[in-house]
């Protein structure tokens, strides 16, 4: 029995239902991303076919949303068709730009670090020389030239760097594919268009060719949510969730902010001993991934990992769309120290509030970096854009339980 049949009374009251809205939204976002990609058109048959495919999928989604198509039955198929159209377009774009210099220092450093690992050296000990179109300037002059990310990103890129010079782009595209696959696999049909649509926010789905790295850590984070024991999808495994969360932490520092809240969640539900085991699982995964570079040059590895937090190599310039936008725009400059203090205050208040209001806010643990990094002196837009797919992943993880609750309520009435 479909959801529409189960809750027929409620559905009669609405002319546009949530699944229709999700499909329309997904179609609208496909139009937006497709329009931007249209500017990169090429006089080739395959580009023409891909363009038509992308826009056709947008029109189909919108048409399904405004008509009587049962999205509780066809939502997943329509979302899959649209997702595949975008991934083919992204892959084709990669083929077109293949080998071109990576523009951002973030992805360029990951690419170079992957190559350095293949040479048997620690990326934390070498000078990074790529990514000069979008470098990261420092307050005292010059630009960041040391690898300052967890080593997991380099390990993810290395197999592809061994094959193509810009292998890190391939790693990001594959991570995007995995993330979309996970979301669409576990999303119920009526949520599938929303799941796909969340990947279009901020052009996230194109980041493999726009030289951003975030899909590398967002994909394992989504898998960690699937394994989370309080998720109503997937296989409940605190161990599995801990491993994948450890992988996410080993790829990018943003995931670190989730750790204390997730630990509190486990402690709240299963006690401090289990929470301790969870922390050990996450930490062990993190350390295992970093073991090779720690063995090669331990001090350089620690410095590299913590550079973004306390900047031993020098303070970076303010940048971002959070509170730091006041400084960036010249409206109201705030010192880096005050930003750090505000973020610490938000963290302390956040942890206390999380424990006290646990039942109402527990799922916020999976997006903890968002509210905290808003106060950081570096609060880049991509930090917050990635909230979209994770937030929808949370909805997916919670969704079936909500429907089950509703079913129980209907049964009782």
């Amino acid at each position, binding site marked *: 029995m479909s959801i529409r049949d189960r809750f027929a009374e409620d559905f009669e009251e609405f002319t546009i239902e949530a699944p229709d809205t999700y499909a329309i939204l997904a179609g609208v976002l496909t139009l937006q991303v497709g329009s931007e990609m249209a500017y990169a058109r090429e006089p080739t048959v395959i580009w023409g076919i891909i363009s038509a495919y992308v826009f056709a999928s947008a029109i189909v989604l919108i048409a399904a949303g405004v008509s009587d198509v049962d999205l509780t039955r066809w939502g997943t198929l329509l979302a899959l068709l649209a997702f595949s159209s975008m991934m083919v377009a992204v892959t084709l774009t990669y083929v077109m730009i293949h080998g071109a210099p990576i523009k951002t220092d973030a992805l360029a450093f990951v690419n170079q670090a992957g190559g350095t690992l293949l040479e048997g050296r620690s990326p934390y000990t070498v000078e990074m020389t790529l990514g000069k179109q979008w470098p990261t300037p420092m307050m005292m*002059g*010059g630009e960041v030239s040391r690898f300052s990310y967890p080593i997991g990103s380099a390990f993810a890129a290395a197999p592809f760097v061994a094959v193509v010079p810009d292998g890190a782009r391939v790693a990001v595209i594959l991570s995007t594919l995995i993330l979309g696959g996970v979301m669409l696999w576990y999303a119920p049909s009526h949520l599938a268009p929303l799941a796909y649509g969340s990947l279009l926010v901020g052009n996230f789905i194109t980041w493999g060719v726009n030289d951003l790295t975030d899909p590398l850590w967002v994909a394992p984070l989504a898998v960690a949510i699937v394994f989370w024991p309080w998720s109503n999808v997937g296989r409940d495994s605190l161990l599995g969730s801990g491993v994948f969360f450890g992988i996410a932490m080993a790829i990018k520092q943003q995931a670190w902010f989730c750790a204390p809240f997730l630990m509190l969640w486990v402690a709240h539900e299963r006690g401090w001993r289990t929470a301790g085991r969870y922390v050990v699982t996450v930490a062990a995964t993190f350390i295992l991934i970093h073991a090779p570079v720690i063995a090669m040059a331990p001090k350089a590895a620690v410095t590299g990992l913590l550079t973004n937090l306390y900047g031993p190599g020098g303070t970076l310039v303010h940048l971002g769309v959070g509170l730091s936008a006041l400084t960036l725009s010249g409206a109201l400059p*705030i010192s880096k120290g005050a930003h750090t203090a505000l973020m610490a205050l938000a963290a302390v208040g956040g942890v206390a509030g999380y424990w006290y209001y646990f039942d109402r806010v527990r799922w916020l643990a999976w997006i903890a970096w968002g509210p905290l990094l808003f106060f950081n002196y570096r609060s880049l837009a991509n930090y917050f854009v990635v909230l979209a797919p994770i937030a929808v992943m949370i909805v997916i993880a919670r969704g079936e339980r909500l429907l089950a609750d509703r079913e129980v309520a209907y049964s009782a009435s």
Partner: protein
Amino acid sequence: MVIIALVIAASGVQAARLPADVTVSDVDCREGEIVGMELTVEYLDSEPVVVTPHVWGTRSHVQLSWDPTTIRLEPGTNTVEIEPPRPRGRIKGDYAQVYLTHEQQRATTNWRTESCRS
């Protein structure tokens, strides 16, 4: 907590203020791009300070430090000339910003690049 946050923010604003007024007094244009500029800096403190200039614009978002990266400001009026470290730093577009930094302090000026549009 809100009061603590406001106190931190207020002290952060105070800590970020470099006692200087910066004005772009002249620009060097080439084919619609700013390839150099002259700054007039009124430095209001009594002790000299060494600052680093950063420039970015509407279509050149990266806040590159321009050369020379160390400028000594004396109390009173200072005239300095700066230029981008490489072609990537040339300023295009309608708006631009120059800011001078000394540790956590900065003095900022935003201006319209009307005089340099081709």
